[in-house]
């Protein structure tokens, strides 16, 4: 081979850049995946000892407050642990509950997550599907998907009636867009299944 010359500089720099970009991108997916394992453990501890906060790792500034499951007959399923707060640092590890005080009480629960990690499955959710939510006391509540809408966040303010019992899942739209800053939001609205009692049995 010839000696290194200045024409090799660009491909080398680009190759390093490519590796860095990929590293960064894959790190986001890896974090989202593996954090849920640690959070699952913290959730189990929370169920045993619900009166105190169990952080998934020592320096975490968020902790699990709910568990969300979605299952369909064709075996598609999802099992997620919802964190308190929906700022960027929480959403990197799991779905976030927007107003933390509503985690255990009756009323509306608004949960947001990234469209390309935890809430990627929302594109497969249909109206009529059942979403199950486990609260800190271990009780499961079933919700039925009632409505799926796409809004422009610039002219549709997120206004919710916190006294209505329900579940609102929010993620970005379109699901496979490359640019993360788009204005569109995908909203999945679910209401408690009428007549369905609270079950303590594990799903």
């Amino acid at each position: 081979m010839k000696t290194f010359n200045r024409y090799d500089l660009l491909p080398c720099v680009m190759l390093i850049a490519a590796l860095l970009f990929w590293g960064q991108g894959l790190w986001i997916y890896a974090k989202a995946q593996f954090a849920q394992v640690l959070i699952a453990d913290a959730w189990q501890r929370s169920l045993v000892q619900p009166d105190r906060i169990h952080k998934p790792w020592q320096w975490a500034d968020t902790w699990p407050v709910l568990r969300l499951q979605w299952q369909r007959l064709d075996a598609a399923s999802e099992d997620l642990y919802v964190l308190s707060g929906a700022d960027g640092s929480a959403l990197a590890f799991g779905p976030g509950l927007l107003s933390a005080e509503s985690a255990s009480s009756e009323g509306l629960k608004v949960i947001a997550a990234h469209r390309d990690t935890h809430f990627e499955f929302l594109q497969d959710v249909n109206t009529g599907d059942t979403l199950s939510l486990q609260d800190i006391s271990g009780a499961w509540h079933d919700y039925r998907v009632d409505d799926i809408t796409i809004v422009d966040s610039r002219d549709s303010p997120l206004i919710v009636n916190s006294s209505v019992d329900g579940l609102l899942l929010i993620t970005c739209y379109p699901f496979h867009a490359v640019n993360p800053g788009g204005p569109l939001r995908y909203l999945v609205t679910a209401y408690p299944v009428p007549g369905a009692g609270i079950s303590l049995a594990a799903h």
Partner: protein
Amino acid sequence: MHTRDTQQYHHKKPSFWSILFDNLAFVIVVGLVLFCLQFAASVKAQTPDLARAGEMFLVSKQQRVTPALQLNTNVSMSIEGMTSRVSVQQAFTNNSSEWQEGVYVFPLPDDSAVNAMSIRLGEREIVGEIHEREEAREIYQKSRDAGQQAALVEQQRPNLFTQKVANIAPGETVTVELQYIQAVRYENGRFSLRFPMTITPRYIPGVPLGEMEAQQEFVTSNKGWADPTAIVPDAAEITPPYLSLHLQNRINLDITLDAGMEVDSLRSPSHRLDILESLQQDNLFHMNLEGGSAAMDRDFELEWQPRAGQVPQAATFVDSVEGNTYLQVMLMPPQVQASSAALNREVVIVMDTSGSMAGASIAQAKRSVEFALSRLQANDRFNVVEFNSDFHPLFPESVNASAANVMRALNFVRSLNADGGTEMYPALQWALATRNTDTDGMLKQLVFITDGSVGNEEQMFTLIRNDLKAARLFTVGIGAAPNSYFMRKAAELGRGTYTFISDLDEVASSMDALFSKLGNAVMAGVQLTWPAGTEVEYYPTAIPDLYLGEPLFVTAKITGKVASAFDVGISGQLQGKAWERNLNVTMTEPAAQKTTVTSALASYWARQKIAALTDLLQTGTGIEEVKAQVLAIALPFQLMSRFSSFVAVERIVARTQDAALFSSKVGNQPPAGQLLAARMAGQNLQSQQLVYPGTATPAALNLLAGLIALGIALCSSRWSRKQLFSINYLRVDRPARDIE
């Protein structure tokens, strides 16, 4: 072409895999392009019908109460030269099955000269008359109780008005039209105009007076959410309710701009516009809101900039009306950039962190302070004061703008939250009073960052007037609907300037312009000389110091006959040097049909005179004396003021005495990004407004960027330069002797 060029390197017939491998870079690039195309197509295909704006989620249908009265606003503006004539039509539609009286508190520009009002009932139009405030109220109440249709407009603040419309029949629409004249702002070579659409909740300082029964007779139907206090006795009149979150007040805008000079850029920072340029006439533009209408949740702003080289340096506008002459004079003083290092100054940043700043405003305010801190010079002294219910200065007294002190200030500002009351008075009082031996002799500049949403404007103005001394006060109005009256007047009394910031993107440019003013010399001691023997009354009577980019703007009335052409002498001091200039004014033929009421210049002059007279209240002149003087101008010029109101009454009785009349408040829309107003709007429905979190990661963007980088790496590698591109490419790229 690649295969032909690369043939010389392949002697045996290549297999499929070797072709693929040889052209790997090419395949990746093609793949990438296909991927991007497919992605663009999928986005386009997937963009669905968007849900209706303002849709309320998870609020059941029963809860979506329709208000008794619905408001639709139509505004047409006609801008010519430096004057804008505006007509505001407010249509109240009664959706209930009862007779209604509508009460609506609304904003208008703070320098607007409201000079006409009328009501439209179907095809009929009833022209309103100007009356003394109490008299107008009586006329209105009498006709309301008698069942006649009537409307009353009162001024609560120069930028805040109350509209009352009586006896709207079930299913009927009553339209009230207001007309006003407004001056166009001209600064830094740019013209601009604001039209406010809603109100940021006003904080009412002071102890509530309790039930003021004496005042309640009229006020009960108009009770806002604040109780009157000794400091703000009219609190209820200026704190209207907010519309439920799922409802909107819609507005249509129709604007004609006759720029009079070639326009380089014309835009609205606040709204998307459809702009039509006239083909028949040069420099004439016609504008509408994109999509026809918009929600009334923010101030409308319009800006236009003349083409370079056409930037006006001086202008005069003259109207001869009923034997008198009204004129407007605009003159740009010479623009001298002084080195700011020479200035020995102390900058005190006063920042509003009250509840009304919660949401978008506090973010804009923080960014503004960060910008201000970054612009401090090493030899400046500075301090930061934040206030809500209490105030907290960062340093007990101003300190050097050392890197460590600025860093401390940045950390302090970033940690602030918006909550609590707006006790502006003690904070500003402290900031004005504080000084020590180090800052003695320094030029003290106060940068006051706030939305100005207080009800005690008068009290604040008196404070600034009395305590300013040698300091200068610069106001920065924050948010979608700042109190523009407070911003302008406080800056005027503080001998500084005012700036508005309604978007994070505007922070840098607006604060940059402000700091150029802070750092540069001013034109001071401006004097006007009028031709001998003429009787002239002009406003502002004391010409303010002119900062960099600011023109002299004077409105005058010359009583009696004047020469057909004369000079106005203008002189001032710039950096200790005297400056003088003569401005030639040529009279126009008196227009026979023009009266003091129809002439825009006459109306604007009278409005300036009323403002000057009202200012006398701050210097101790009794209210009765001021009232008499204001009425002596307001009534003949048919102008709205705090002492004169418009009232229009239909003669025919519409509602018989057996039908009851209900009174309904028409709410304002919570300003965009304003959490306090949104919370107040949601209170009765137990609803709340949340902020959409960012719900996408840059992972895909990273992978794509990585793919592009890899593509470039492969294409530019030595191996592929040889394989993929022809020898010709190499010959162009490299000297011939380098070819292998």
